[in-house]
């Protein structure tokens, strides 16, 4: 009779040896992804094509499926994601050469190559609102030896790197065939740590961990660095009712509930198993003024309005708790690469008497100021009520038009229909991505001083001088008052204590997140 013992010992030794060899090859042993991370979102995304729309919700979901060449780290500086390194900028800022990573696989198993990247970028230039900004200054885009992407620009354009990193209206990489298909995207194959499994509109979007995911190198930081799908499934559940999102978090049905009204924090505090998440930075509330037509095309009258309004009162009415807002004039505060207080020195100093003098000087004769607002965003509505009162106190006649959001979004494109509107802008690390910097965007801020300051800022890729140039542009912004920036506000979310590794972010991400 032959003993089994030597064979078992040999098999066990081989198994240990193979495991050890695998560990040496990969550098680490990754635990298999487990669990389901359920995320309650504010609703159904209008699309799953991250290029075609700038809707935040689309970016939040699709950033798990699709990836860009660069990503922002925790300090909002650019780090390579699908790029192999920093861009090499030559010819006085007009030629950008971006090395591409090798060994990256798409969710269909094919390897990402230069032709895929080129086709994706061409699609982005054609369909994305952000890509079109680049297309306007682009001479040519090409692939060099299949290993690098080269942008040849008509003039230096420093925001290119940031535009290639943003996750909505995003320059994401996809297989060539998908990128060149006619019409809206019908397949959603990307390179991200999760792949799309199922989309049932208004019910859920299911993503599952992508086994062949190739993570970028480096420590995880913000949206950059190491990415690992630690949960087997990521499920986004559209839940438009905020109370339902909250109750779902409290009951444990949702492990993350996004965008809760700030007054709900009291209900989360002290509840077992759930904790509040305050997202900083999050957004800037704006009162955009019509620079093109109507009474507010007059810059002096806009400054009168600026003087009449007290941002602190508006923020307090909107959010109640100072934990959720800051009465900040500058767009970028201390610690940010673009921090500058230039132009914002007198921010927040409301002065009704000064407003009256300025209005008189502008020839204001009591024409109604048509302000569009919406109850769909309660905080904007509350701000607009305070603004109405303060403007009336300063002698203005106000026609406050309360509309549903879709109507407001439609009407804002017609300069004949409004004088001012309330909206908000999610924090962006690159000023050129702020919508109001685009002269074609509602508000139509298009003056020679602004164009010169923006051009100077966009032409300089040097980080040390960009902060100064941004300060100059911000100075023009506060002097011409095309839009009123009403401080900044933060967002509230709720997460289960079972969730580990979550970092608060304006567009929450769930790679490197596990569920106990």
């Amino acid at each position: 009779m032959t003993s089994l013992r030597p064979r078992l010992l040999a098999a066990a030794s081989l198994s240990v040896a193979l495991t050890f060899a695998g560990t040496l090859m990969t550098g680490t042993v990754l635990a298999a992804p487990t669990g389901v991370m359920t995320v309650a979102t504010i609703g159904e995304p209008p699309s799953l094509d991250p290029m075609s729309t700038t809707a935040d919700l689309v970016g939040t979901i699709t950033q798990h499926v699709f990836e860009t060449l660069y990503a922002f780290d925790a300090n909002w500086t650019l780090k390579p994601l699908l790029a192999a390194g920093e861009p090499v900028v030559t010819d006085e800022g007009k030629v950008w050469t971006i090395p591409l990573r090798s060994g990256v696989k798409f969710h269909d198993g094919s390897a990402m190559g230069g032709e895929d990247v080129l086709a994706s970028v061409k699609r982005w230039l054609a369909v994305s609102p952000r890509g079109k900004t680049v297309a306007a200054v682009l001479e040519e885009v090409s692939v060099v030896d299949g290993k690098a992407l080269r942008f040849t620009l008509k003039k230096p354009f420093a925001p290119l790197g940031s535009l290639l990193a943003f996750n909505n209206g995003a320059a994401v990489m996809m297989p060539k065939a998908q990128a060149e298909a006619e019409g809206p995207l019908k397949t959603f194959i990307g390179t991200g740590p999760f792949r799309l499994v199922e989309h049932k509109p208004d019910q859920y979007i299911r993503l599952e961990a992508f086994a062949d995911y190739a993570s970028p190198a480096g420590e995880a930081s913000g949206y950059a660095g190491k990415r690992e799908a630690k949960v087997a499934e990521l499920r986004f559940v559209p839940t438009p009712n905020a109370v339902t999102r909250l109750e779902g978090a409290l009951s444990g049905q949702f492990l993350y509930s996004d965008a809760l009204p700030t007054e709900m924090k009291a209900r989360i505090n002290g509840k077992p198993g759930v904790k509040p998440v305050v997202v900083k930075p999050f957004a800037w509330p704006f009162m955009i003024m019509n620079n093109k037509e109507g009474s507010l095309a007059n810059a002096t009258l806009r400054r009168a309005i600026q003087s009449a309004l007290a941002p602190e009162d508006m923020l307090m009415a909107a959010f109640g708790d100072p934990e959720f807002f800051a009465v900040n004039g500058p767009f970028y505060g201390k610690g940010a690469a673009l921090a500058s207080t230039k132009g914002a020195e007198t921010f927040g100093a409301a002065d009704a008497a000064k407003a009256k003098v300025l209005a008189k000087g502008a020839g204001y004769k009591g024409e109604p100021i048509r302000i569009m607002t919406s109850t769909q965003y309660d905080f904007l509505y509350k701000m607009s009520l305070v603004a109405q009162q303060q403007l009336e106190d300063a002698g203005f006649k106000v026609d406050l038009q309360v509309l549903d959001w879709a109507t407001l979004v439609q009407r804002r494109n017609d300069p004949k229909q409004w004088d001012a509107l309330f909206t908000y802008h999610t924090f962006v690390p690159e000023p050129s991505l702020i919508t109001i910097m685009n002269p074609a965007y509602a508000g139509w801020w298009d003056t020679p001083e602004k164009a010169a300051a923006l051009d100077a800022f966009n032409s300089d890729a040097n980080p040390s001088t960009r902060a100064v140039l941004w300060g100059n542009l911000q100075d023009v912004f506060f002097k011409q008052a095309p839009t009123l920036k009403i401080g900044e506000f933060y967002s509230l979310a709720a997460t289960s204590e079972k969730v580990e590794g979550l970092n608060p972010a304006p567009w929450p991400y769930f790679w490197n997140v596990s569920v106990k």
Partner: protein
Amino acid sequence: MAAYVVRRLLSMLVVMCLVAVVVFIVARVVPGDPAAVMLGTSATPEDVAALRARLGLDQPLLTQFGLFALQIVTGDLGESIFLNKPVLTAIAERSELTLLLATMAVMVSVAVGVPVGVISAVRRGTAVDQAVIAGAMLAASLPSFWIGLTLIRWFAVNLGWFPVSGYGEPGAGLLERMHHLVLPALALGIPNSAIITRFTRSSMLDVLTEDYVRTARAKGLPTHRVVLKHGLRNAMIPILTVVGLTLAVLIGGAIVTETVFGLPGAGNLIVSAVLRRDYPVIQGALLIISGLYVLINLVIDLLYAVVDPRIRY
């Protein structure tokens, strides 16, 4: 009977044509633009105009209506702008939930409303009757979203007996899906049970004073037989009408409840379509709901003859 049915079906056709015109006008009169919603807040007017042209929204309204009318005639309600699927498919997918929810809610309403209404009528003028009247008034006054949120707080969050929202895990079976619908059905069913209670009470009060009921009592029949067989059966016509109308209302009116409970039903589809200005879905859903409403009314009228043999068409 056949002639009556044909006559009613023809009048139904006229009603549906009128509904189609009204639905088209209402959808277009409301300001808002699907292209602007799709592209997000950073889109420029040029981007929006280009997408409008691609979706055919830049065509004159008369051309768009002609296309819509042609689609109805061919039994095709067009394609959803957002869902990238035919409107009929989208509505069919969502209707299962809404029909199930409406049926469960009607069952709750009937299970509560009819017995309570009968008891109230039998105990007319007593404290029980007064309590029922007051309770019915209160229940009818409570908005279903408030009832829904209260049920969620107690039975989903505090007790953990039911889920807060949704329609079950992917691949959920019928039982799990029904489990998700218990609280919404209660939220919808409770206010409607008050209406059924009051109709049952009033109808029973009329019937219980009839001569044949007195005769039945005089014959020595037990009270429960007098009330249920001679009373309730004859009181059923107005009750049946209300139950039918309740079902019709719930099919089209579960919108708020579906939103509160995050249910992907037809109501939710309509809300989303309105917010996104998804015209083909708004038009298609309203047409179908109107059609169902008219059809349910017809079925109720025909049921009268079944319940009451004296009625002939």
